[in-house]
């Protein structure tokens, strides 16, 4: 599959990257070179192979259960009292490029 300039523009949009014309040209070249190499995966017959999203399912998953109960290893009981403290407000805002005492501040979200 060949990547086109239109693809690069579309993907940059999805990834929220403002690429310069030079960056887009480089990206076109690099993506095509890498994807050409990656295409060899199609040599393998994987029609009956289950996908492996993560390793931890191997040693935690309870195959005998259904639905979310299979992932019990990753869960804990709901804590009603004595929950770990949240990050204090000022600490949470400390790295903000722009904030008042309450909120992170950003340029307007809704265009009129």
């Amino acid at each position: 599959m060949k990547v086109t300039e239109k693809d690069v523009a579309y993907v940059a949009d999805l990834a929220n990257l403002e690429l310069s014309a030079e960056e887009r040209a480089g990206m076109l070249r690099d993506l095509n070179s890498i994807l050409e190499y990656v295409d060899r995966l199609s040599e393998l017959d994987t029609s009956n192979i289950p996908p492996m999203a993560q390793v931890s399912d191997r040693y935690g998953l309870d195959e005998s259960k259904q639905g979310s109960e299979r992932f019990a290893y990753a869960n804990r009981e709901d804590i009603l009292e004595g929950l770990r403290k949240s990050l204090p407000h000022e600490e949470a805002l400390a790295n903000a490029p722009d904030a008042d005492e309450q909120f992170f501040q950003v340029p307007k979200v809704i265009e009129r």
Partner: protein
Amino acid sequence: MDLTALTIDAARSAVQERKTTALALAEAHYARIQKEDGQIGAFLTLSKERALEQADRMDRMAAEGKTLPPLGGVPVGIKDVMSTRGLRTTAGSKILEKYIPPYDCTAVARLEAAGAVVLGKMNCDEFAMGSSNENSAYGPVRNPRDLSRVPGGSSGGSAAAVAADMAVVTLGSDTGGSIRQPASFCGVVGLMPTYGRVSRYGLIAFASSLDHIGPLAKTVKDAATVLRTIAGRDPMDSTSADVAVPDYVAELDKPVRGMKIGVAKEYLGEGLDDEVRQAVESAIEKMKGLGCEIVPVSLPHTPYAIPTYYIIATAEASANLARFDGVRYGHRARGVKTLSEMYRRSRDEGFGAEVKRRIMLGTYALSAGYYDAYYLKAQKVRTLLTRDFDEAFHKVDAIVTPTSPTAPFRLGEKSNDPLAMYLADIYTVTADLAGIPGISVPCGQTKEKLPIGVQILGKHFDESTILGLAHAYEQAA
């Protein structure tokens, strides 16, 4: 006593027995950093206040005759992808140039609870993306064994610091080989534990199903000591395994006679440097001499590991790096008029070229119309690669391979060809994909005196076997 030529035990005992102080140890390391790091570039941030406070705590304990914790007074370095509360953490990127985390990475907290003295944060490839530490926004790291060459990556700073005696031990991270390969290139020990053995809480995520934290050290015993301290279930990381932590140090001296060692032909084929091949074959002979039985095995899907890795890792990275948007932390572009412009320009200005390349590749692989052909396909091949190891481990206890196909290359040699750089990971990515543990130990050098490493891979949660074999080999070599 040369205060910068010590292992963990030697350093800790010296402080406990009051032959020196933790303060003197820290100061000796800082003096060495001052002298050597200008040329090497291993450290990004020094944490003198934090270090001296901890050293003082340890010295007071020793003065009161109390038993020091297992890493009491030991100077350590932390790769800059691990968050340290109150101490700048950059992930090697300009986008986090001024970021000061409000919390500690669990692995760091456990080290400090064990008495370790954090000297500073180690330089690395940006967001752990790279195999040479040439992708750091703060300048490359140079190999202490030959300053014209790379230390490997992405934990280049962590490896170089240990190799140059600027820290006793460091923490690195490994997603495609980033602990083992720089360990090999710098002539030190690098351990990547089983996925889930060590909590990832506080590790700035690159690829969540592939990331691991592990130690880089001067000896296998030191690596085992650190693992014993940082391993174990963490409620803050739901992928951290609820598996008991053995005493890895006590188990080191278990005899290796009779251990079955697999040698895979796919790892000794084309593309492997002759000098590396010779060194690794010698290492295997030495293991045979220790009473191990060499068994040929096959890992037939190995040629598909790199493409599988670069789809899965970049796809996961594109999701993980979406949080860097200029809103709550990190770089925000100036003069922007809309939210959308803020996201796009902040990210474009803050991220380096390799990071952008991987985000683009990952986004493409996940996008509508391509998800099945790329991401889903790669996940299925990941199953096949993991099954190769499962099969092999029915016959053998460990698998021995080269760590890298070449000795350390020169700065600039591969940086123009991303694909050539990616192919350097050929022997390390498989372990990350399967989630199995791997360790690299020095096994010789080239004619030009460049370090070569041998890798030992093991079964899930069987770090004891690979540590034991590595230790036996290290003692015999």
